[in-house]
């Protein structure tokens, strides 16, 4: 199976739907001097082509415009954590033939396309967290229930401060995917009026003989009343924004088993939240 061509065909199918929603990425800070624990695999400005047979955590560092394609094949019950830091033009293909818990964290400025493929009787539970601080992130998530009995639950959450995120989602259920289950949920939290979040979920169902097929989007803006409530607990504007981001990151990493990765994300959290000027 040529998964790159599969991604291309989905891009073609969805081109009309998304053609007006493209963001340019910017050459932003790359976080190049991070202390990445040796236990975590690191990919720098290159492609990955890997079979995964057990739990795995990979940190991807990019700081160039050239397109990179990463292919990850999951053959056994696994937890995969993919962290993308920096800026770049990336395509990721994850195919699952078993039971997969997938966590994707994106920090920086990216044009990112993810294709998640569910093979026969596979079960994928995926959470994606986008932290957008004074940058642009253009993300398209393709979830493809390819064969009978495959289940994909995909939830993506963007937290945006003085930035823009276009979060596009295209869920497809093929003719072969009877008794499959698809859920695509796109959510965004906007922290200020300068930020922009555009969610575009779409579903293409070729076979309606499925267990479930749903998709949706929501946007949350911290309005004045919410802020005042938090201020009445002693929080100022900056700490409210920090708290929101902390909460989203904590929620995303709560199910991650890899302790080294959790600690690394904690250091990233401190660096991102403390370093970037929100005001």
């Amino acid at each position, binding site marked *: 199976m040529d998964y790159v061509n599969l991604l291309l065909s989905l891009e073609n199918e969805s081109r009309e739907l998304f053609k007006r929603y493209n963001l340019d990425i910017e050459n932003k800070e790359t976080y190049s001097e991070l202390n990445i624990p040796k236990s975590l695999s690191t990919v720098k400005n290159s492609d990955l082509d890997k079979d995964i047979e057990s739990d795995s955590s990979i940190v991807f560092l990019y700081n160039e415009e050239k397109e990179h394609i990463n292919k990850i094949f999951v053959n056994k019950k696994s937890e995969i954590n993919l962290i993308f830091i920096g800026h770049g033009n990336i395509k990721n293909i994850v195919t699952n033939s078993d039971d997969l818990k997938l966590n994707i964290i994106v920090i920086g400025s990216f044009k990112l396309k993810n294709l998640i493929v569910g093979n026969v009787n596979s079960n994928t539970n995926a959470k994606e967290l986008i932290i957008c601080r004074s940058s642009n992130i253009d993300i398209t998530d393709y979830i493809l229930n390819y064969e009978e009995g495959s289940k994909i639950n995909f939830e993506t*959450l963007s937290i945006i401060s003085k930035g823009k995120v276009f979060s596009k989602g295209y869920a497809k259920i093929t003719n072969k995917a009877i008794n499959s289950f698809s859920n695509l949920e796109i959510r965004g*939290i906007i922290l200020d009026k300068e930020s922009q979040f555009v969610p575009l979920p779409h579903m293409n169902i070729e076979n309606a003989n499925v267990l479930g097929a749903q998709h949706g989007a929501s946007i949350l803006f911290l309005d004045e009343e919410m802020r005042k409530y938090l201020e009445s607990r002693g929080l100022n504007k900056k700490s409210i924004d920090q708290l*929101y981001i902390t909460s989203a990151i904590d929620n995303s990493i709560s199910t991650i088993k890899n302790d080294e990765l959790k600690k690394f994300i904690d250091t990233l959290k401190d660096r991102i939240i403390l370093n970037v000027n929100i005001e």
Partner: protein
Amino acid sequence: MLEIENLYIKINDKEIIKNLSLKIEDNELHVLMGPNGSGKSTLAKSIMGYFDNINGRILFNGLDITKLSIEERSKLGIFLGFQNPIEIEGLSTMTFLTHIAKGSSFKEKIDLIYSIADRLKIDKEMLSRSLNFGFSGGEKKRFEIMQMYLLKPKLAILDEPDSGLDVDSLKEIAKAISDYKKESNASILLITHYSRITNYLDINRVSVMLNGTIVKSGDINLIKEIEQKGYNYLVDSNV
């Protein structure tokens, strides 16, 4: 503790608070009663700093806080337990509580949060939800009281902590308020429509608010007067 002098507040060109003066002493449990629309919640919010455009003065422990922000007033030790706490989806309750809880280590804060949750019979499952999101009315009230325990204010303004509660929950909330006052020597301004909760509290002073101003103050006997005569007699006597 708190002194409000000749307060006037207009919202959308309508005068909501009119020449209101009120004093709350140290370690006092002061009940504020009044019918719907009398301006009680507006007064509560004005003490907390919700409104910019006000006339008059608010003094807290001798300090003029009239121009201070909400956050500054909170840090001075003023707390507002809301009548209808707003839901904030996306903000984890536990993350929020560990941020506001006082404690020198993360473990200490977690232990404190769990002990208060046990004390107030708050289901720990609630702590994993978004802030106030999907909480029942009673759960929201308990959760406001929990935040009071964590923030340890010197003045706690509790806006209708009794509304929508069954009799058992009402007793529990009243006990929690009473215990907090004893443990912290804080002052409490308790806002309510009804006298039910006052049966379970040791009240020092009662004020009645009508049409944006305080029309009468007294001791606990004033509550019995209101119970017997309603608010209308005060309206008639103030016409």
